[in-house]
């Protein structure tokens, strides 16, 4: 048993940390963007990702024949934790689920075209699984893909696509075989976001993210852009979640919020008395830092299971996501309760405590227990796969 990184892992963590301090840029790194900060949605942030690429930090865990270094996935975990601690863009879908699925199932054309783009930070992807009728019931996608001469014709609608308003390519699940069982009738496609049949309609939210509806009106996709085998789409989507073990959700933003709150409480006063002497505040802080330590423990558990190389850490990942996203919301709620009436002053104004960090974070974290598999879906997974309880829906 060992709760420290190995010396070489620690060396890498220190190197990344020092590099991030040296390369700090307010245009790129902004804690007020909360979880949205992980996206490379501006020229400055894309340029930052190019610098990461130049360091050789993209695709570290990929096989050497595809330009990777074949080092352990834990380095990508270390990198993403450091990036998210600084509210910098993270390595994400390209290196993770999309890159790894292409390496495993993509054709030579796709590998030659997309993998170098990912390694050089020349591409941003959007992922389109969710639809109006396919939320938690992800396999219920209805976007239609009909076989036509030389390719496929896509018609229908996607929902909740993060990044669609700036991405270059769209990683999309569509129904190619409506007569087959719902899990066996889906296929994966790569669609150029410039396709004239695509219409992106942004949906503003109360959080920091703009999410999008995407409408498909006779979107033609050439045969070369069907990923893997026809009808294997849902299986590849599930497998990707298992292949991509290390870069799913980072703990650092939550730990960072706890730290920010603690530092603020230490200095704040109310009615001329130090706020930290208020027993109610002390109790809340004790609970927050304890739960944050538990979230870290669950993260350690998840990373160790992922490192083992054995079966995919599905349970560990579900437990971590379930606990941590709920904690994330609790921290913001408690922070506002501690700040009292001033907590409600809207973010971005200098007169707000911490410039309204927690007023904004309270709004921004509401999606965490919904997106990426809701808390209820995580509990279903834990109940069935971990505890061996029967199917409950």
């Amino acid at each position: 048993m060992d709760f420290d990184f190995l010396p070489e892992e620690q060396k890498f963590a220190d190197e990344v940390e020092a590099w991030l301090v040296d390369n700090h840029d307010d245009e790129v790194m902004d804690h007020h963007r909360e979880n949205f900060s992980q996206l490379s949605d501006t020229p400055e942030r894309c340029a930052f990702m190019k610098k990461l690429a130049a360091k050789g930090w993209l695709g570290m865990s990929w096989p050497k024949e595809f330009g990777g270094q074949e080092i352990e996935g834990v380095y990508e975990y270390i990198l993403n934790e450091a990036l998210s601690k600084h509210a910098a863009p993270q390595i994400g879908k390209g290196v993770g689920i999309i890159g790894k699925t292409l390496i495993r199932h993509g054709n030579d054309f796709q590998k030659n075209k997309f993998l170098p783009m990912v390694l050089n930070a020349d591409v941003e992807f959007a992922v389109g699984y969710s639809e109006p009728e396919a939320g938690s019931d992800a396999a219920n996608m209805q976007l239609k893909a009909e076989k036509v001469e030389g390719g496929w014709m896509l018609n229908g609608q996607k929902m909740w696509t993060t990044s669609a308003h700036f991405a270059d390519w769209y990683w999309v699940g569509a129904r190619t075989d409506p007569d087959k069982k719902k899990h066996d009738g889906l296929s994966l496609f790569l669609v150029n976001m410039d396709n004239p049949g695509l219409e992106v309609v942004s949906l503003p939210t109360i959080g920091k993210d703009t999410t999008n509806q995407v409408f498909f009106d006779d979107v033609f996709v050439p045969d070369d852009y069907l990923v893997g085998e026809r009808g294997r789409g849902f299986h590849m989507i599930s497998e990707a979640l298992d292949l991509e073990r290390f870069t799913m959700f980072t703990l650092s933003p939550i730990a960072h919020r706890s730290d920010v709150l603690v530092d603020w409480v230490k200095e704040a006063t109310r009615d001329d008395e130090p706020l930290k002497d208020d027993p109610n505040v002390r109790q809340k802080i004790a609970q927050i830092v304890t739960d944050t330590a538990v979230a870290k423990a669950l993260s350690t558990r998840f990373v160790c299971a992922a490192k083992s190389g054995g079966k995919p850490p599905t349970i560990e990942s579900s437990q971590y996501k379930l606990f941590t996203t709920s904690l994330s919301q609790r921290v913001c709620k408690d922070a506002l309760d501690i700040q009292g009436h001033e907590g409600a002053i809207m973010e971005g104004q200098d007169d707000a405590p911490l410039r309204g960090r927690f007023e904004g974070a309270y709004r921004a974290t509401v999606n965490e227990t919904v997106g990426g598999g809701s808390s209820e879906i995580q509990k279903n997974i834990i109940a069935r796969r971990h505890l061996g309880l029967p199917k409950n829906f």
Partner: protein
Amino acid sequence: MDLDFTEEQQMVIDMTRTMLEEHCDTQVVRDAEDDPKGYPDALWKQMSELGLNGLLIPESYGGGEQTILEGAFVYEELGRAMAPTPHFVSCVVSAKLLLSGGNDAQKNAWLEKIANGDSILTPAWLEPQRGFSAKGIAVKAESDGEGFKITGRKRSVAYASSADQLIVLARTDAGVDLFLVDPNASGITMKQLLSQGREAQYQIDFDGVSVSADDRIGAAGSGWETWTAVMQESVILLAASAIGGADRCLTETVEYANSRIQFDKPLGAFQSLSHYMADASTSIDGGRVLVHEAAWNAAQGRSVARLGPMAKLFCCETYRETTRVCAQIWGGVAFTIEYDQQIFFRRAKALQLTWWDTPYLEELIAKDVLD
């Protein structure tokens, strides 16, 4: 980072669990409840023979010289079995108080006997209408030139009827000090107080009980510091024990939820119930890693002033909450004496209320974080 057990650690876990399955089923637990002695000799003898009583004591005193991490593994099993033994008060807290504050004569007199189970020591700490902090110590040890005279009332002294020595926390001119006291000394009266956990515990009155200056553990006024440092580590083991109890409570409840049929399907097929269990398992699995992290840090010689209290706080609440939702799943039988669920339910809360309760732990953590 690596959460695996070594082969030796796995052996300790397996050995402890096998022994407890054989010598500590719930009938043994039930028989010990409210019993004036409170633990079975057969179990105590087994623990001694397997080296568990000396687990944390140095080899030079006949112990196994293992770290608190191995202790945590053993305590998860003791908690799973709800084993009624004076191990915590004697082989952990008293042994550690002697090791960190005692002189050679005191260590030579007691540590080997604690390690082989021949002697039982127990701290006399809490008092009526008083709390867990140093302010809670009002029992006086007044200097009479030669030694001290101890006067006052102690509560919740575990296994005092079997104790060969008490370690009494008492107020002196120098502050709080620890004294080794013979429980048969004149001026001591004991009365068993039944408790929610139904473990043997006593109220003890001290009426001018004489102790010699040689019976003080450590330098004058050093007692509270010694006590706090020992407690910071020791509560990690109680957290481990809470995880063991919660884990077994949940495991038995999952089995029940798979077999009990209502509305033509097993209880576990009802989402509201399965989600209770999923939440409980998440807290248990997270709490266990927190316990291991705290114990591992203590074993590395790092401070556990924050991690120790965090582990006790979170794991005792996890145990309590697990027994609450499990009672909901068992339904009416959960609170009948016949079923074992009621034992978990009572003990989880009792464990949370003592050896530092929730508000005290929160304050320890807040102090470490904020002050």
